[in-house]
């Protein structure tokens, strides 16, 4: 099938729509993840999504449900542990390692006891955007709506508690509540991103675009828009490129995302250089 023909296929439309939804979410949440230095926590939430998915496969239910349960539960725990925005590396690492261990066991049980296919595990780990069906698209859309509404509501206190926790607390912002809310939103966004790029590549949508955006601007609102835009370009570009050349979609997405990041680092460093000259305090 030619590229032009593929563009008329329903599954391609579904994939592009799902990719767009996920990009908006991951780009928006990613900004706060980057500001608070939570990359490792996102990684943990994502890997625990794998455990949840493997559990769902063993139980014979929808893996997406398993991803959500896994990500949300670990998100809640981490949110309580990391209220001040400084992640507790060792706690996160311990949760992550054990969760992955359980995941390995569950995949083993799935393939041996239920005679499942090991490719299912590969899909969860590395993504299978073109496998998204209409029903999953609706679920994605609903979860995205929840995250975006919540994010609009908490944007200001969340920004305050992320950049200036001491002052935020004094002004009546509940650091713990916002930390839990953010981790739950991260868990939802991660669970969505897993379906596009897979567990192991979630950071390419949740971290890289936001990291690139913060290199390009110091305006919080503009950084949010840029982060979403970069995630969008990477996702949709990756899906389209994988139609032209049948390499894994996740590879193209991560390549575009990283490419933008490198460009942003180089140009951003140049743009900021003059301001580094110390200005007299008087």
């Amino acid at each position, binding site marked *: 099938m030619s590229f032009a023909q593929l563009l008329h296929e329903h599954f391609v439309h579904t994939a592009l729509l799902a990719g767009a939804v996920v990009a908006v979410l991951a780009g928006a949440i990613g900004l706060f993840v980057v500001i608070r230095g939570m990359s490792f926590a996102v990684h943990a939430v994502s890997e625990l999504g794998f455990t949840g998915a493997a559990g769902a496969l063993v139980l014979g239910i929808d893996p997406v449900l398993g991803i959500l349960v896994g990500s949300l539960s670990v998100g809640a725990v981490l949110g309580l542990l990391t209220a001040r925005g400084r992640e507790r590396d060792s706690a996160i690492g311990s949760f992550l390692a054990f969760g992955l261990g359980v995941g390995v066991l569950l995949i083993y049980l799935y393939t041996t006891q239920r005679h499942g296919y090991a490719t299912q595990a590969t899909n969860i780990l590395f993504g299978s955007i073109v496998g998204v069906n209409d029903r999953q698209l609706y679920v994605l859309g609903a979860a995205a709506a929840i995250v975006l509404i919540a994010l609009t509501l908490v944007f200001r*206190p969340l920004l305050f508690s992320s950049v200036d926790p001491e002052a935020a607390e004094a002004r009546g912002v509940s650091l713990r509540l916002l930390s839990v809310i953010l981790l739950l939103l991260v868990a939802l966004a991660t669970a969505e991103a897993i379906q596009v790029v897979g567990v192991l590549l979630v950071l390419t949508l949740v971290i890289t675009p936001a990291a690139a955006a913060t290199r390009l601007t110091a305006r919080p609102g503009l950084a949010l828009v840029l982060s979403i835009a970069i995630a969008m370009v990477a996702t949709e570009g990756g899906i389209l490129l994988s139609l032209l050349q049948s390499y894994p979609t996740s590879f193209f997405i991560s390549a575009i995302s990283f490419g933008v990041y490198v460009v942003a680092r180089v140009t951003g460093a140049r743009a900021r250089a003059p301001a580094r000259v110390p200005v007299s*305090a008087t």
Partner: protein
Amino acid sequence: MSARGQRAVSEGEGRTAPPLGKVVGKEAAEAAGRAAPNVVELRHASLRFGHRTLWEDLDLDIGPGEFLAVVGPNGVGKTSLLRVLLGLTEPSGGTVGVLGHAPHRGSSLVGYVPQQRAFEPGLPLRGKDLVRLGLDGQRWGFQRAGGRRALVESAIRSVSAEEYADRPIALLSSGEQQRLRIAQALVSDPALLLCDEPLLSLDLNAQQVVVELLEARRRERGTAIIFVTHEINPILPFVDRVLYLAPGSWTVGSPDDVLKSETLSRLYGTHVDVIRVHGRVIVVGAPDEPDTALGEAGHPHPHATGLDHPDPQAPAGGRR
């Protein structure tokens, strides 16, 4: 542990006829409709964490436009006192009143300049964004800028930070950042300003700028200031009273009454020397982290110049 507070000689009684500068402050405060006679009232207030008593039986009244310095070695509960006034920590005993009410977190009438913390390079935040957060950062939901922009701009003007308010906050010098923090604390027009070591990591020049900003605010708007510091010398000319917290004991009074050998010796229960050199106060021999008590306290042989900072580039104070 007996923790009776002691009053230095002339505290309280002599304050019915305040110095001229304060009259202006009081009038300004009354004009603003703040009829409460005291901005802060502590009665037999105490704070304990587990078995550890930080302070006990603390009585303190702070009037509008008053400048109170809180000094003492590390770990005596200076920052905790601010947290109590902010409503973030419950006192263990006694009563605490801020503007006539029990302290409640998030009051816009209390401004707070927290201890400085470095901003991560690449943080997507400009100086003006930091100031704006002091106005509506705690509010949920979508906020229209509306009249807030003017308030933010006027706060930035009041600290003369217009020139760099649009730059990324992480790229500013610590003196510039501190000015913006003060603008953030003042943007909600507080009647009480709490500052936690605001001079830390500032060079002498920037220290002076910050102190003058605070002094101007107090003079013009009658804002009461509680200033926690390791170094009293930069603010000595402006301070009305000093609250000296020592382990298990405290005293409050005018700088001249508190910062003298008899008072501090009685407070610490051991011989302490207070030396004045070129108008600066140096405390020698205070136990419990002597080097952090008051600027140069740890140096029995102060530099001949009497400077507060042996090395202005080094982080001031005794934090490690």
